[in-house]
């Protein structure tokens, strides 16, 4: 091997890159289980009582649950990808949702934004109920092919 001749090492690197990692396969499920056991803190959001006056107490849902449901609802549209979801609340009352999208190149972005907004409204109505005065801001801030 002459000085500066790294061909064999370069080829070894390529082989090392694609070698299977059976050790990973052996622990993959345990890693996923460990993640599932790990709680993340999210702000509570008040939920509209579906049957007012029938039971005492209040209902709350974590903002992470709402965020997860929003992300799932917005995942299937081929014209955009969600790049950020932010949920704002004050004293446990939802007051804003901000969604950023990357639009598909040449897609009708205003229409895509409107579809995303409508889906958000549906999810909020399902999860939180009919709450007045909250805002949904959806914007396309990036484009992808």
């Amino acid at each position, binding site marked *: *091997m*002459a*000085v500066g*001749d*790294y061909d*064999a*090492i*370069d*080829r*070894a*690197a390529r*082989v*090392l*890159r694609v*070698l299977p*990692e059976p*050790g*990973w396969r052996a*622990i*993959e499920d*345990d*890693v*996923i289980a*460990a*993640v*599932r056991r*790990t709680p*993340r803190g*999210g702000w509570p959001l008040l939920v509209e009582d579906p049957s007012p006056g029938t039971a005492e107490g209040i209902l709350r849902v*974590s*903002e*992470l*649950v*709402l*965020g*997860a449901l*929003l*992300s*799932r609802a917005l*995942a299937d549209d081929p014209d955009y*990808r*969600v*790049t*950020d*979801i932010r*949920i704002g609340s004050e004293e446990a009352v939802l007051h804003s949702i901000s969604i950023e999208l*990357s639009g598909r190149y040449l897609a009708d972005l205003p229409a895509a934004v409107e579809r995303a907004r409508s889906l958000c409204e549906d999810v909020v109505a399902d999860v939180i109920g009919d709450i007045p005065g909250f805002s949904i801001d959806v914007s396309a801030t990036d484009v*992808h092919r």
Partner: protein
Amino acid sequence: MLDNSWPDTSDDIDDRTLAAAARAGDQGAFESLVRRHGPALYRYARRMTGDSDAVNDIVQETFVAAWRQIGNFRAESSVRTWLFAICARKVVDSHRVKKAIPIDDRLIEPASSDRGSDPFAAASNSAFLEAMELALGELPPRQRAVWLLREVEQLTFPQIAAILNLSPDGARGHHHRARTTLQQRLVQWR
């Protein structure tokens, strides 16, 4: 409980989309990131760490920490770079970094004395890779880390610098020294 139905290996869902969903609270999206990046983090930790129990702990702790912290991840770096940075810290924190181990030259001699033979040919292929692993183990940890991230994981020097808390030029320097050492140690395989 959410139905974790993000496609596990779908290449058309990019990391940024999965990270945004995970940040919002979608554990299924995060699990897709775990499955996508787990093998690379595992192979990095395996070559940086002395024993297999430590590797398992490091990789698991990396993803648990990432899940806890993903609310603060704002895509200034790629998801891959961010995960490697967490993993590299876990490797150091484990105090089980595989030290540079001087090895007997005979261990990395080629199985065949035919200098013209291709090291990747036939039976010598696995022997060459074994010698390569031994030579990698002989590198000082930082050089080894830089070489692995550059040559195996194909990250850029600025990304490697961010992961290992170095300057990009520092990363280049470690890479150059690692490459030179590997070349010298494996010269017989030419």
